[in-house]
C-alpha cells in the first residue's frame, strides 16, 4: 500500500506511451476519460448537494436554542424546542463507549500482533471472527443488546446498555486500526529493547505502544465518530421517546442526537423538519470534524514512515 503515488506519476512510462500513441488516439479514449470524470463529479456533487440542502434547511433553527432547550412533543412550544437532552445523552453514551471499547480494542490488538502465534487455529479463528464482526449489520447488535444486555443482564434501556452495545459494534474498527499501527512499528525497535534486557511487556508498553500512538488515535477517533452517528441499534433498544431530561447516571434513560433526529423526522409539522435539519448540521459538524482530525493524523503518520 505504499507505492500508489508512484504508480500514477505522469512523468514516467505513461507519458512516453501517450507520446507514442498520440497520433492514433481516438474518440473512445476521450469519451472514456470524460465518463470517468463524470462518475466522480456526480458522486461528489450529489453528496455535496445533499449536505448543502440540509444546511440551508436547518439554518433558521441553527442557534443557541438548539443546545439550550429540551425537545418537546407540544406543538405550541415548538419554537423554543432544542436538543439539549440528546446532546448530553450522546456525551454520556460516547464517553462510556470510549471507556469500554478503547482499552478492550487496544489490548486485543496487542495480543493479536505481539503475542498470538498465527499458526495456531484458535488465533486464526479469532482474526476471522473480528473481520466478520466488522461486517455484521448494526441492527443485529441492537438485537444482541435487547436479548442479552437489556434483558438477560437486566440493564434495561439505560445509558449503560447503549454504551456496551455501541462498544461491541465499533470494537473491530479499534482493533483493526490498532493492529495496523502496531505492525508499522519497525522490528528493530523491538530488537533493541530486547537486547537491553527488557521483557516482552516492557518492550510493548514502553517502546511499541508509544510509537504507535498516532495510528491508534486515528482508529479511536474514527470508531467513536461512527458510534456517535449510529442510530439503528439504539432504535431496537427502545430509545425512541421524547426524553426531556439530561441523564445523571448510567442507569438513566437517554436519547442521542441521531435518535432525536429520527423522532423529529416522524412528526408531520414543518417546524420539526427544520429542527431535524438543524440537529443534523450539529451532528455532521461533530462527526466530520472528528473524521477530518483522524484522516489528517493518519496521513501525517503515513508520510513520516
Amino acid at each position, binding site marked *: 500500500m505504499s507505492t500508489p503515488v508512484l*504508480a500514477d506519476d505522469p512523468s514516467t512510462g505513461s507519458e512516453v506511451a501517450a507520446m507514442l*500513441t498520440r497520433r492514433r488516439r481516438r474518440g473512445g479514449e476521450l469519451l472514456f476519460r470524460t465518463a470517468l470524470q463524470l462518475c*466522480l463529479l456526480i*458522486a461528489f456533487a450529489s453528496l455535496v448537494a445533499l449536505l448543502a440542502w440540509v444546511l440551508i434547511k436547518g439554518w433558521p433553527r441553527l442557534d443557541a436554542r438548539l443546545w439550550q432547550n429540551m425537545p418537546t412533543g407540544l406543538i405550541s412550544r415548538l419554537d423554543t424546542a432544542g436538543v439539549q437532552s440528546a446532546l448530553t445523552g450522546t456525551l454520556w453514551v460516547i464517553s462510556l463507549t470510549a471507556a469500554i471499547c478503547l482499552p478492550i480494542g487496544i489490548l486485543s490488538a496487542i495480543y493479536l500482533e505481539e503475542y498470538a502465534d498465527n499458526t495456531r487455529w484458535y488465533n486464526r479463528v479469532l482474526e476471522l471472527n473480528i473481520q*466478520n*464482526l466488522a461486517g455484521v449489520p448494526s441492527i443485529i447488535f441492537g438485537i444482541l443488546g435487547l436479548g442479552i444486555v437489556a434483558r438477560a443482564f437486566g440493564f434495561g434501556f439505560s445509558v449503560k446498555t447503549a454504551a456496551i452495545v455501541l462498544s461491541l459494534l465499533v470494537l473491530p474498527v479499534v482493533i483493526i486500526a490498532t493492529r495496523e499501527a502496531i505492525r508499522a512499528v519497525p522490528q528493530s525497535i523491538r530488537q533493541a529493547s530486547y537486547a537491553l534486557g527488557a*521483557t516482552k*511487556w516492557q518492550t510493548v508498553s514502553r517502546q511499541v505502544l508509544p510509537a504507535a500512538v498516532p495510528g491508534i488515535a486515528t482508529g479511536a477517533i474514527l470508531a467513536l465518530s461512527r458510534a456517535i452517528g449510529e442510530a439503528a441499534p439504539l432504535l431496537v433498544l427502545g430509545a425512541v421517546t421524547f426524553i426531556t431530561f439530561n441523564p445523571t447516571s448510567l442507569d438513566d434513560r437517554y436519547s442521542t442526537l441521531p435518535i432525536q433526529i429520527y423522532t423529529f423526522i416522524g412528526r408531520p409539522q414543518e417546524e420539526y423538519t427544520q429542527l431535524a435539519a438543524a440537529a443534523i448540521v450539529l451532528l455532521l459538524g461533530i462527526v466530520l470534524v472528528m473524521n477530518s482530525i483522524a484522516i489528517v493524523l493518519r496521513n501525517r503518520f503515513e508520510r513520516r514512515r
Partner: protein
Amino acid sequence: MTTSTDRIGGPAAGGTLRRGRRRPVEALVKGLLVLAALVSVATTVGIVVALVNPTVGFFGEVGIVEFLTGTKWTPTFAQRSYGVLPLVVATLMVTVIALSLAVPLGLGSAIYLSEYAAPRSRRVLKPILELLAGVPTVVYGFVALFALNPLLRQIWPGEQQPAFQNLLVAGIAMGIMIVPTVASVAEDAMSAVPRGLREAAYALASSRMQVSVRVVVPAAMSGIVAAIVLGISRAIGETMIVTIAGGLVSDSIVWNPIEGAATMTAFIASISSGDIPVGSLDYNSVFAVGSLLFLITFALNALSIRLVRRFREVYE
C-alpha cells in the same frame, strides 16, 4: 515445558535469578490481553445466543417452509401469516437500485482516481471521499424523505406518483451513501496492482484506457468484487434510510419500486421499537428475521474476506 525453553532462550543464571521478579507480571499481562481478545468471541457467541432462542420459539409455532416461502407477512392482522418473502423482495429491490447506482459511479471514480488523476488532486480527493463515507445514515434517510422524494415526484413521468415513502428513493439515497465505500475499497485494490504491469502494457503501445480496462481492472478484479460485495452487504444491513424513506408496509410482496415496502431491517426497527411483550410471536418474529439477516450478511462477509485475501496474496 516453560523451564526447558527458558534455559535454551536466555542465560540460565539470569533466568533463574529474575524468574521470581518478572514472571508474574508478564503472565498477568498476557492473561489480560487474552481476556480482551476473547470479548470479540463473546460478542459473536452473544449474537448467536440472542438470536437462537427466540428463533427456535418462533419456528415452534410457524413452519420454517411457511416462513421462507410464504408471500404474506401480516403479524398484526386477524389472519396472521408469517411469510418472509415480502421483506426479502423489498430488501433485494432496494439493494439492486442502490448497487446499480453505486457500482458504476464508485468504480468509475476509483479508476479515475487510480489511473487518471494527478497525484496532487488524488491526495485531496481520496480523503474527502473517506470523509464522506462517515456521514451518519440517518442523514441520508432525512434527505431522501424531504429532498429527493419531492424532487422525484416532480420529475416523475408516469401516471402513478411515487408514494410518500418508496423503495426507489430509499435505493437512490443508499446508492449515494455506498459510492464512497465502493470507490475507496476498489481504489485501494487498483493502487495495489504493481507498476510493472502498467509499464509493460504502455511499452506495448497501449493507451491509458486500454491499460485501465485490460490490465489494471482484471488484475484488481478480486478487490473490485470484494468492494461490490461489501457494498451489497452494507445495503442489505442498512436500517435508517429504509426505515425513514422506504416505507413500513409489509403485508404482501411489492414489485413496484415507487411504492413503499418494509425491508428486513425496517421491519426489525419498526416492530422492536414499539412495546411488544417478550416471548410473544411478534417479539420472536423480530429475531427470526434477524437470524435470516445475520446468515445472509455472514455469507457475504465470508466471500468478501476470501476475495480480499486473494488479492493481497498475489501482490503484497
